[in-house]
């Protein structure tokens, strides 16, 4: 599904990613763990196409396409979804309009018919119910005045509506209490299946108790320094990143 080879990238002249090699097969959930400053967020932004990152080498293939050649909206339309670490507030943009516009843009790009307001509301209500989110969230401005937990739930709601092939969850657990963490994780787990892959980026092992990964990779100093099964996360929790650093 996703294949990253020798990816290097700079921010303002400073090299952050120093040669990432990573493959996420169809249907698998992989976790990337690493300490602060290891390049986790840079990787997620480079994959989603945010400006300000200069790709200096390597390649990324997503669902058979050269991902790095696509605009952010084209990446979304081809099935990539980034759940933001800090979801952006959009004052004056209603959440319902935002969600419907996004869903229809993606449907249109996929050659599916667009949904009118009533059809959209029906779909949105089903998703809201499944995620235990109140309907009033549709009426509010996008993320405006949302608590940290509400913002993350709104990200998962967007993911549930857009049904991506690959979701990148960037520190989705940060700022979440245990109840919110459970709801978010349930949302991700509900999508798991043969057509869905995910890259879960996190600092802590806690999230991986709820979203159990097929593989865990340790990112340090802009490189993947170790890969293993879910037990690697437990080891990191017990021994800290220093142990990996020593081993690497």
């Amino acid at each position, binding site marked *: 599904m996703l294949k990253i080879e020798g990816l290097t990238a700079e921010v303002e002249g400073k090299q952050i990613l120093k040669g990432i090699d990573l493959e996420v097969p169809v249907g698998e959930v992989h976790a990337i763990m690493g300490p602060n400053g290891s390049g986790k967020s840079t990787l997620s932004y480079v994959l*989603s*196409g*945010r*400006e300000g990152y200069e790709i200096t080498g390597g390649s990324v293939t997503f669902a058979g396409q050269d991902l790095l050649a696509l*605009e*952010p*909206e084209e*990446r*979304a*339309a081809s099935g990539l979804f*980034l759940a*933001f670490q800090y*979801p*952006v507030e*959009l*004052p*004056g*943009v209603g959440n319902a*309009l*935002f969600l419907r*516009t*996004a869903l229809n*843009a*993606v449907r249109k*790009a996929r050659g599916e018919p667009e949904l009118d307001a009533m059809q959209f509301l029906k779909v949105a209500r089903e998703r809201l119910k499944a995620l235990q989110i109140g309907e009033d969230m549709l009426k509010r401005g996008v993320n405006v005045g949302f608590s940290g937990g509400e913002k993350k739930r709104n990200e998962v709601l*967007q993911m549930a509506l*857009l049904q991506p092939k690959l979701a990148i969850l960037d520190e989705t657990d940060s700022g979440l209490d245990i109840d919110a963490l459970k709801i978010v994780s349930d949302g991700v787990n509900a999508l798991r299946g043969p057509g869905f892959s995910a890259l879960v980026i996190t600092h802590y092992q806690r999230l991986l108790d709820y979203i159990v990964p097929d593989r865990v990779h340790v990112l340090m100093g802009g490189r993947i320094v170790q890969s293993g099964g879910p037990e690697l996360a437990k080891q990191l929790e017990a021994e800290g990143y220093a142990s990996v650093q020593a081993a690497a």
Partner: protein
Amino acid sequence: MSAHPTGAAGFLHRYEGLRMRLPGARLPFVAALRDQAAEAFRTQGFPTRRVEAWKYTDLRPVADAGFDEALTAVDSAPDLPPAHGTARAVFVDGRFRPDLSALDGLPYAVESLAMALPGLDGRLGALARVEAQPMAALNTMLFEDGLVVTVPAGAAGGVLDLVSIGTASERPEAFHPRHLIRLGAGASLTIIETATGPEGARYLHNPVYEVEVAAGATLTHARLQQEAPRAFQLATAYARVAEGGTYDNFTLNAGGRLVRNEIHTVLAGPNAACHMNGAQLLRDGQHADTTTVLDHAAPDCASRQTYKTVLMGRSRGVFQGKIHVHQVAQRTDGYQMNQALLLSPEAEIDSKPQLEIYADDVKCSHGATVGEIDAEQLFYLRARGIPEPRARAMLVEAFLKEAVEGVQDEAARAALDAAITGWWEKAA
């Protein structure tokens, strides 16, 4: 064709020639008002940028154009903009057109100013200040028509469309309609005004409004300025609001080449309120100026002003807003915000808020911001699959929303929303 005198001299020359033929020439009070205005206009001329109130708006393109008086066939049938209500008053090149209007069976009086003049002694010119505003002087000197709306106490007037169409294409024409609007105690009315003209039309539309809102009355005055691309509009509104009354003005500046929306509001009785909101949507080559002067002249009044300007290409926007809180106006609650969104590095916005406060127990705030489209917000929308042009449109609409939401009347708000959406669809 003979050369036309331009500038103030051209208009004064016209006045000399037309003086005895203008409506109301035989009414001493009208003749006196006109002569007085001519004298004021002769003294001031077209304001230059050395005049503080016109520092950011250069009227030379207006002064340098030679204007003819409007000579429109009385049976011309221009395309009319969409109606927002059932009542409609239509003006073509400044002249009232009963054949295009629909004013039967209304719970208030609507007349053509030219016809109503004999009964307007004391009302015409009661608020306009020709010695201070030269464009109001020009209007008073040369007005030929206008709308006189008189809503009796307690009447609910509903929605009245006021339509102005400028048609001159071969030679530029000037028209100076004078509109008098009076609401009796507890009355209400919504006026949705559309000023427009066909592509290619060249004209100066120089309206003056004198608005009287009696105790407890509410006037919603929504102005959609969608003039022809080469036209000028220089509008001056004067409003006086009595105890517990509300004047709700929204002006959308979207058309024209050089436009000014100048509003003078006096909150004259306790608990009076006014909203002066607006949006300026400017494309390459356009200049739009909104200038508000608000007098808090009584205690316990509230005022809200939110103006938003969106600028594209080499356009220029101006906002000047003065709030004068008189000594007697204790417990004034005033708020003024003006914000600009620059969509082009060549666009320019000038902003001059001004507070003069002479009362000591006052809550007054003002603010101004200038910014571009937020890169984080744009990326967030695009990362959800929304193509960049649509994402930009959503952010511009969101920027404007706060100003439109300040409009209480639903019909007016819907008209403004539609006009803004229409503008963006054309612009993008």
